[in-house]
């Protein structure tokens, strides 16, 4: 009888524990939420096999709970997921986390955590984040969106104390361009196998941030 009670207790504790939010993720979320505003000069370098575009510069303005504004004198391609350095998208809806153990990257061990939104309105179904438990920040996450495919975002930080990443690498799936031949320009050399292939290609965009005017929420006692 005692064994059965103990089994039920442990099972329920484990189950409930699984529904909790990982404390490292929670701490990162709280750190991120202290950021009220920032502006940054960003350089964007796009690496897509069928797109040639020079490195571009833009200025972004972030205000908490508002859409990030982007300004540029040139035409720029702004990644739909890459500019969210505050990770607002990850944390804006209620979520649960699942501990997935540890992962070794570049000689460092990180905690791997699944972030699963509990609200149907969330625009992603699951995200897998690599958490730096010492510096309390996320270094990489893969996000499976409901409409825009899968993104892998890798972040690097210049300082150990930095909350916001200085360099971002956003990897995404993109379909090969299909437009009528000779629509514009010289007669194209057609690689038929490429055109017949339905396999999506991978694109990467590299972003380098130079922050200014970061304001934080004042601590209240």
């Amino acid at each position, binding site marked *: 009888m005692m064994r059965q009670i103990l089994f039920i207790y442990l099972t329920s504790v484990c189950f409930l524990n699984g529904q909790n939010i990982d404390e490292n993720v929670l701490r990162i979320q709280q750190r991120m939420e202290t950021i009220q505003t920032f502006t940054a000069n960003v350089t964007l370098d796009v690496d897509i*096999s*069928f*797109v*040639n*575009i*020079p490195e571009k510069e*833009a200025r972004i303005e972030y205000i908490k709970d508002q859409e990030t504004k*982007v*300004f*540029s*004198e*040139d*035409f*720029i*391609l*702004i*990644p*739909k997921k890459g500019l969210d350095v505050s990770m607002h998208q990850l944390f804006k809806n209620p979520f649960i986390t699942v501990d997935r153990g540890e992962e070794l990257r570049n000689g460092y061990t990180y905690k791997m955590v699944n972030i699963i939104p509990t609200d149907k309105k969330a625009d992603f179904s699951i995200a897998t984040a690599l958490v730096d438990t010492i510096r309390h920040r996320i270094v990489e996450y893969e996000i499976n969106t409901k409409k*825009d*495919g899968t993104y892998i975002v890798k972040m690097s930080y210049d300082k150990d104390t930095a909350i916001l990443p200085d360099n971002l690498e956003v990897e*995404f799936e*993109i*379909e*090969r*361009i*299909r*437009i009528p031949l*000779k*629509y*514009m*320009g*010289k*007669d*194209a*050399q057609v690689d038929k196998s490429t055109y017949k292939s339905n396999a999506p290609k991978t*694109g990467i965009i590299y972003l380098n941030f130079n922050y200014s005017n970061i304001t934080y929420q004042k601590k209240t006692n």
Partner: protein
Amino acid sequence: MRNLIFSEAYKLLKQSKTYYALAAIFVIEIIILFSAYSQGQSVLDLLLDNLKNSFHFEGNLLNGNLLSYLILNTLWFHLPLILIVIISGTLTSEYKDRTLLSVMLQPVSKWKFILSKYIVAIVFTLLIVFFLALTTFILSYSIFGKGDLIVYLDTLNFFESSDAFYRIMWAFTVGAISMVFFSVVSLTLAIIFEEATKTWILGAFFLIVSNLLLKVNFDNYVLDNWLYVKLNDTWQYLFYYAIPWDKIYLNTVILIIYTIITMVFGIIIFTKKDVN
């Protein structure tokens, strides 16, 4: 020789066809600008369709550089057709009006006379391309402003505004060589066929066949690289992301050689021909 050139230039400037041609070029530009204004965004939407899922776009691509590029594409057909009509007309009208016979009764060397026609045709062609380029830049930039240029050539290529201007300017320059080739061919056709309608039909036929053959892959290095039809789109190489200057220089030199050969051929035929 100089007097002959001045005389030919005077005749060209006096004929009304010249001004109709200039007006036609201007009207084509206006039509392209209006159609681009109304349909340009849908063209851009089609080009950028695949990128929409992954990116937001900031900035305006429907700008003066895109419009200049679209007008530049008249070098495929519209401009050479107009040039064929005007340039061949400078000789066919002389056959028709019998002024050629009057000239030949004077102590004028036949080869100098026809060479001066070729020289004037070449200078006129270069001036027409310059006129097209100048009006293109003035109209496009004043109405649509500057901005990045997008071109689809195997890949989607984006060029910054200053780079786009530089490329379009060079494309007009290189394209002028192609236009000179068509002008010289049309004058040579006029020498052979004498009659205006025949010359125009054959000139237009030559242009259409050239455009059709451009798309044909001969699977032969010489034909695919050195046949004249494969050289007439050299100006498009300016819109590859990395400009293949060596290829452009080589193509331009070969096309100039073809132009000179055509001229020499025309001069020989004219000098051996009796003028009735």
